[in-house]
């Protein structure tokens, strides 16, 4: 879309109305994944491997099957045998199937090996205890560096794709290398070069709603599935493949979703519930427990990283290089490529080189988590930049401004940037009172920038006008954080009718064309763009009806404030024709009026943010308290600013947890040690300060209203910003996350 036809004055966009689903959400009547029931419904439960790596010698289900209350037991044999194994991500259906139900081997603690459906949840759990599994325990590995060593146990031969150089361990399954210039020459030009090693542990998305679904599948291959998901079309496609049925015969309805953050972009229990239902010929409800969520879904990748950056005395970066090793569990998919591509993306670099590894271990299959891969890389890179600033005595914002990417900069990962807003976020940070506020003794301040690509993706939206002139909008992207409100605002803007006259529904897979999942910060961008286009499509038809009524050409009619009006003095003298008058007659003037849009928008528009954090370190206990936090991020155009702020605040809070507390802890036996919220501690209300936000608006040339996605960038800067604040407060560089009290204490004592 050209810049010149982009709208800049808005009537509805940028206002803060109540969300349309507010009443449902505050009264308890909103239906989430586990809130659906069906007549004759059975309850499912899944048996999981207690071993990190084991050959499954035999599964004897006969005792469980003999129970009166048990109506079905399934194992891998109950899924399609036509899903093909292929290297890397090419055979992703096979990877998902293998994750959903183990085949020959259990690959991690918590890997599903069998499932039952029984007349009650308690009966199903009791029945699991009667399933006998004979395991031959194999050597395991859960650490990314150890998994790359020559003698590491091999998770799966043949999983590496074409990108992996010869001679690497078979656990290295994908490889990425990119950059430009001559880094060695660049380092030679530098006044100071710092090279350092950084580690981050895996964290979980931590959505409060565990995965839940209600499935019905008959022997005729027709099915119905209700589930909490970020994208029901991908659920439909994947479940159909895993069960060997036709995609269109499975109707999937997305429930309200209790958080996802990337973790609900794939399937875990849905195919299992469908298989149980097919076998029992009754509806089956399957709900995960919290420890199942921790052991078998999510988490994000853990990372081991080496970063080297050269800088001149004036702050100019002369060269940058990074090696990023990401562990993604027992399957290909760890976003080593994204980590590498995002790490240096905020900067205009002449010489840059980045390498990413995707490494398999005996852990659960990693899933996307808000800007997958980017926070880890930013942690390493922005820590080194902070150290360079400290040692050269330079202001961290000035240095970032000096090197900041702008419109036309060749990005570290290849393309040239169109209009972007990094400089604007840095300038806003510098001008913010937080940046000049005095610090108390024991406190430190940290800064970091962050980058995320954002995503468009396949999108369908359908808009239908009712005869009273109100509008219903059908979108296919589940509403995770208020997107119904932003869709209604954008439709109101185009149609010129009040926000309240628009009802936005998340349609099921049978009532709308394909939609990619709600991920990649794509909803407000892509579904928003599609809603605008669908509304414009309807407006064209409204204008046609008005033109026919007035007997003038359609190009002599324009749409203004919810009415058709003559486009100029020469078009004729007619009173404005309101939408409701046109729709009241539509049955007689040509039939129902609807608007559609189906496409894959490509102009998502990258997004940058800058965070400022103050941290206080207790030198006796090693405990860190965040005393002040400010998020500054480019939203392109904030459709509903309150929900944009909410995305910024939520991302920052998750980043605080990742930086300070959250981690997957594995024992020597390869078992997860902290699979409950008491031991895997996400931030609680008393851990956090208010989180200030500044919305920067540098319009995205790829969206009619200038929107950039805002959901993900907010989690990219916090790890580094907090590490920089803690390092500055403690007087020692923190190189490993989380910065839990024991780790900070060790660093203070000099043995970190």
């Amino acid at each position, binding site marked *: 879309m050209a810049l010149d036809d982009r709208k800049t004055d808005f009537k509805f966009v940028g206002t803060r109305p109540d969300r349309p689903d507010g009443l449902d959400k505050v009264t308890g009547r909103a239906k989430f994944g586990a809130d659906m029931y069906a007549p004759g419904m059975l309850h499912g439960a899944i048996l999981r491997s207690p071993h990190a790596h084991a050959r499954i010698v035999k599964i004897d289900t006969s005792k469980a099957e003999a129970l009166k209350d048990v109506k079905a037991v399934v194992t891998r044999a109950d899924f399609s045998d036509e899903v093909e194994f292929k290297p890397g991500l090419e055979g992703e259906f096979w990877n998902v199937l293998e994750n959903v139900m183990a085949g020959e081997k259990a690959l991690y603690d918590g890997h599903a090996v069998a499932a039952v459906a029984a007349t009650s949840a308690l009966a199903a759990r009791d029945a699991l205890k009667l399933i006998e599994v004979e395991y031959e325990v194999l050597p395991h590995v859960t650490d990314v560096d150890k998994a790359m060593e020559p003698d590491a146990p091999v998770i799966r031969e043949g999983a590496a794709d074409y990108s992996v150089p010869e001679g690497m361990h078979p656990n290295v399954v994908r490889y990425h290398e990119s950059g430009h210039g001559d880094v060695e020459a660049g380092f030679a030009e530098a006044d100071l070069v710092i090279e350092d090693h950084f580690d981050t542990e895996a964290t979980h998305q931590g959505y409060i709603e565990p995965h839940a679904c209600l499935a019905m599948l008959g022997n005729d291959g027709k099915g119905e599935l209700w589930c909490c998901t970020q994208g029901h079309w991908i659920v439909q496609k994947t479940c159909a493949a895993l069960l060997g049925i036709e995609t269109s015969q499975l109707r999937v309805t997305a429930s309200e979703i209790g958080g996802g953050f990337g973790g609900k972009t794939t399937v875990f229990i849905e195919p299992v519930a469908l298989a149980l239902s097919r076998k029992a010929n009754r509806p089956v409800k399957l709900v995960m427990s919290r420890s199942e969520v921790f052991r078998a879904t999510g988490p994000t990748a853990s990372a081991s990283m080496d970063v080297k950056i050269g800088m001149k005395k004036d702050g100019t970066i002369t060269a940058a290089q990074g090696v990023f090793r990401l562990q993604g569990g027992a399957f290909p998919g760890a976003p080593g490529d994204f980590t590498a591509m995002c790490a240096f993306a905020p900067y205009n670099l002449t010489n840059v080189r980045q390498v990413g590894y995707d490494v398999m271990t005996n852990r659960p299959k990693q899933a996307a988590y808000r800007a997958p891969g980017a926070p880890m890389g930013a942690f390493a890179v922005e820590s080194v930049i902070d150290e360079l600033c400290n040692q050269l005595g330079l202001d961290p914002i000035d240095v970032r401004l000096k090197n900041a990417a702008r419109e036309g900069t060749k990005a570290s990962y290849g393309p040239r940037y169109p209009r972007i807003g990094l400089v604007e976020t840095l300038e806003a940070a510098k001008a913010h009172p937080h940046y000049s506020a005095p610090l108390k003794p024991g406190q430190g301040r940290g800064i970091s920038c962050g980058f995320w690509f954002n995503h468009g993706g396949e999108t369908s939206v359908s808009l239908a006008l009712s005869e009273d002139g109100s509008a219903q909008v059908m979108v296919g992207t589940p509403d995770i954080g208020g997107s119904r409100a932003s869709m209604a605002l954008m439709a109101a803007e185009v149609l010129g009718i009040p926000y309240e006259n628009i009802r936005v529904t998340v349609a099921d897979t049978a009532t709308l064309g394909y939609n990619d999942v709600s991920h990649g910060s794509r909803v407000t961008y892509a579904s928003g763009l599609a809603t605008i286009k669908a509304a414009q499509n309807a407006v064209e038809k409204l204008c046609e009806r008005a033109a026919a009524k007035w007997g003038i050409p359609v190009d002599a009619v324009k749409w203004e404030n919810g009415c058709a009006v003559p486009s100029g003095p020469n078009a004729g003298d007619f009173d404005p024709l309101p939408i409701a008058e046109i729709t009241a007659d539509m049955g007689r003037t040509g039939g129902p009026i609807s608007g559609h849009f189906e496409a894959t928008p490509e102009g998502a528009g990258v997004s940058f943010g800058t965070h400022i954090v103050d941290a206080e370190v207790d030198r006796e206990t090693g405990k860190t308290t965040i005393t002040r936090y400010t998020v500054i991020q480019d939203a392109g155009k904030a459709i509903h600013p309150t929900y944009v702020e909410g995305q910024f605040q*939520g991302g920052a809070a998750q980043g605080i947890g990742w930086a300070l507390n959250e981690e997957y802890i594995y024992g020597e036996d390869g078992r997860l040690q902290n699979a409950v919220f008491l031991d895997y501690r996400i931030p609680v209300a008393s851990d956090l300060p*208010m989180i200030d936000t500044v919305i920067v608006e540098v319009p995205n040339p790829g969206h009619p209203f200038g929107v950039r996605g805002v959901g993900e960038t907010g989690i990219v800067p916090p790890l580094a910003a907090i590490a920089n604040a803690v390092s500055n407060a403690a007087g020692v560089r923190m190189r490993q996350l989380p910065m839990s009290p024991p780790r900070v204490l060790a660093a203070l004592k000099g043995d970190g």
Partner: protein
Amino acid sequence: MSKIHVTTTVNGDEVDFLCDPRETLLDCLRDRLNLTGAKEGCGTGDCGACSVTLDGRLVCSCLVLGVEAEGKEIGTVEGIADGDVLHPLQKKFIEYAALQCGVCTPGILVAAKALLEKNPDPTEEEVRYWLAGNLCRCTGYDKIIRAVMDTAAELREAV
């Protein structure tokens, strides 16, 4: 296992149900009484999504057995509004966008209402500590705390 007959009061209505003695109050509310407002986020007393009041006391219903409800008075999110009139907390939560996904909201509303009944003039710190047992992964708590503080102020003015 044979089932036990329980008679109790939920949101002012007398109800009865049959349950397995191992079933939690949360499961009974949801599966036996169709009150799905309370959610299970953990089942171990750590997330507060299942918060209800039992004879006026704030509890995690996942840690209470269904049979313990015998003769008690239970309050859930479904009983917070007075008919079609929302409780001020409910209005403020919508106004402040104190929810994104909304799955923590029922528990937080029940907990916040219990706080304001005990302490009509809480400090920010008191609100944060009172709600420390209610996890929210979406909002960073900022807008939740503001909504609760503002409701408290409004309720004080109304007295």
